[in-house]
């Protein structure tokens, strides 16, 4: 046999994702978290009193809750060393030409302005703590669709924001929801009026450039009766030697007969703690579809939740998690069937390699009144070598036995025989592995918007380079 190469490099170059800009800002808070800092953030944003009160109350809750110990180890995350608010050296604009050159270049290389021209109905771009660009096609504005940054929404749609903000994910939900309530900044607000079908997607992209910083964007989407929209969220950051923190919050309200697809490709750098909370509530006959790709981060705890509270409401979750060296990705999905004849389909896949740890944690809860409901859960894990790990923790809580459930979990290793088989057709070992991995994620990749499917393939290529052995 030829001598096998083993050329693993701990910090693989992740190309454009790792391009750092000089750390420039207009304002930043001190490190750590105090009521003084929270008040400063609120003052910087000229917020109404109720929001300041909300922030301070959240801070209290944050301080009263212990760090959760049921999941990944968070002991290395030191809140006192995180800068919670950084206003970039840019004002929000609806014109890329007005965005400062270095920031614009970052989004250019991520392909955002290009995608906007080709395949999106609206774009938001956040850099550190604030949105620097937000734009939406005029025809959607004419139909009453609102797509703007949360700060603007706070001013222009204060009543709607006040009615919904952190009602689905209240600050006492868990410690990092409380943290979010205290220091949230940026994010997108979407409102789709009754009956309006937005047929091309909206996309918000969140970029954290600053070292040792936190990003706490809030996304609030309301899809009114019979309306439809597809929202895409992208996230990335360059790698630093200090820990960064992302504790965003996503609240989705899907009304009767409405449909919302929420796609995420998360590619944070491997110094990031991604402790994100996402939740959707779905009314009668409504549908929420989650498409979720988790590739980056040092530690992730992410379990998008669907609450099916109207009859015949439906939830679909399609997720892929890729854990490489130094990554502990604890991801999954939660569904609460809280009305009769509701349906959920969970399809999750994970890949681990080079000592990475990918865990599926799921919750399926069926309320006493949810008779005639259906749920299928399928999770599959693929481990690329013997150092990597994978696990499945599905929790099923049934308060009703008139329900149809299917559950399937498979954990496997990439088989030497499969590699041999592909190589016997002339394909190199590296390409054989990539082919098997791409095939494994194919059912997920085809759910992604095209440019993200391409990105997914590139990420797999980047992750698999130099892992022969």
């Amino acid at each position: 046999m030829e001598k096998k190469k083993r050329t693993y490099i701990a910090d693989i170059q992740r190309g454009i994702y790792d391009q750092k800009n000089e750390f420039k800002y207009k304002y930043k808070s001190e490190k750590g978290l105090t009521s003084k800092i929270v008040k400063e953030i609120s003052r910087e944003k000229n917020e109404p009193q109720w929001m300041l009160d909300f922030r301070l109350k959240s801070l209290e809750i944050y301080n009263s809750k212990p760090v959760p110990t049921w999941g990944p180890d968070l002991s290395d995350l030191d809140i006192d060393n995180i800068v919670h608010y950084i206003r970039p050296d840019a004002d929000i604009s609806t014109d890329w030409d007005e965005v400062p050159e270095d920031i614009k270049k970052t989004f250019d290389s991520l392909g955002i302005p290009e995608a906007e021209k080709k395949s999106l109905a609206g774009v938001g771009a956040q850099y550190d703590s604030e949105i620097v660009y937000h734009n939406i096609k005029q025809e959607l504005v004419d139909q009453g669709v609102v797509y703007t940054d949360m700060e603007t929404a706070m001013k222009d749609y204060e009543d709607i924001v006040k009615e919904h903000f952190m009602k689905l994910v209240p600050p006492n939900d868990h410690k990092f929801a409380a943290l979010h309530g205290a220091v949230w900044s940026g994010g997108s607000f979407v409102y789709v009026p009754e009956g309006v079908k937005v047929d091309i997607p909206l996309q918000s992209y969140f970029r954290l450039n600053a070292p040792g910083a936190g990003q706490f964007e809030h996304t609030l989407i309301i899809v009114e009766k019979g309306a439809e929209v597809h929202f895409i969220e992208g996230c990335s950051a360059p790698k630093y030697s200090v820990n960064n923190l992302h504790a965003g919050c996503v609240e989705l309200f899907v009304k009767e007969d409405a449909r919302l697809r929420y796609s995420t490709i998360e590619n944070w750098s491997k110094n990031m703690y991604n402790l994100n909370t996402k939740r959707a509530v779905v009314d009668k006959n409504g549908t929420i579809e989650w498409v979720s790709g988790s590739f980056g981060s040092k530690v992730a705890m992410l379990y998008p939740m669907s609450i099916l509270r109207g009859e015949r409401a439906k939830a679909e979750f399609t997720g892929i998690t890729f854990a490489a060296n130094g990554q502990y990705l604890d991801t999954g999905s939660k569904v609460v069937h809280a009305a009769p004849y509701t349906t959920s389909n969970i399809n999750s896949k994970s890949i681990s390699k080079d000592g990475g740890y990918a865990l599926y944690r799921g919750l399926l809860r069926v309320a006493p009144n949810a008779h005639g409901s259906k749920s299928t859960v399928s999770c599959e894990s693929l481990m690329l070598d013997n150092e990597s790990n994978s696990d499945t923790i599905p929790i099923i809580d049934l308060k009703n036995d008139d329900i149809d459930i299917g559950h399937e979990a498979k954990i496997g290793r990439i088989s030497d025989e499969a590699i041999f088989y592909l190589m016997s057709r002339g394909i190199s070992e590296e390409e054989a592995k990539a082919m098997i991995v791409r095939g494994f994620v194919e059912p997920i990749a085809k759910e992604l918007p095209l440019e993200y499917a391409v990105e997914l393939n590139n990420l797999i290529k980047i992750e698999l380079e130099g892992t022969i052995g």
Partner: protein
Amino acid sequence: MNKKILDIKNLRSKVDETEILKGLDLEMNKGEIHIMMGPNGAGKSTFANVLMGHPKHEIIDGEIIFNDKIINDLSVDKRAKEGMFLSFQYPEEIPGVTVENFLRNAKMTLTGENQGVFAFRKVLKEKMKLLEMDESYASRYLNQGFSGGEKKKNEILQMVVLEPKLAILDETDSGLDIDAIRIVSNGVKAFSNDDNAILVITHYNKILDYLEPDFVHILVDGKIVKTGGIKLAREIEEKGFEEFK
């Protein structure tokens, strides 16, 4: 012109600490069809795997000369690029990779030339027709959910598309019904020409009703103990392998 394509000298191999091939010699020329028969445990599948370069098997002595080149140390994919092909006894299922994409990819890798999507599809369809395969197989995931017979046909399809110089068929006929054996044999015959060679490893005789081998080899305990023509195979059919043990 040298017609010799394969020259194996005193090949010995082991897996873990067990020696399986114990000094095997075999020569094959272009244009020939060889049959290798032997009782269970003789080392037939091991031989196929050692030839193709399965990493589990270690060569401890001898040489494999393929296309005038010693290939003992060549990796599996490089052997394939030299023109070697193995039809697997138990083909692997590769979810998410369609037959068409896989084969097109392999063909590009082997030839180093781009294969236009439509031109390739046309060739693929012709070959599928030859093997009486439904066109829908092209867009199915490689071997996934295929029956035993469908997997074997799919192996032969790969062979006729990739056009190797030496095809080793490891028990391709086992588990096939008469119809499938006929179809597979027709595929093999259509593929066979003056420029390639085929080694059929089998322990049934059925396939011999369709193929006309130039040589029949009997493999017992890791060695070829007898070589002859079609008559030898008929003898085995009557008497079994007892007298060679």
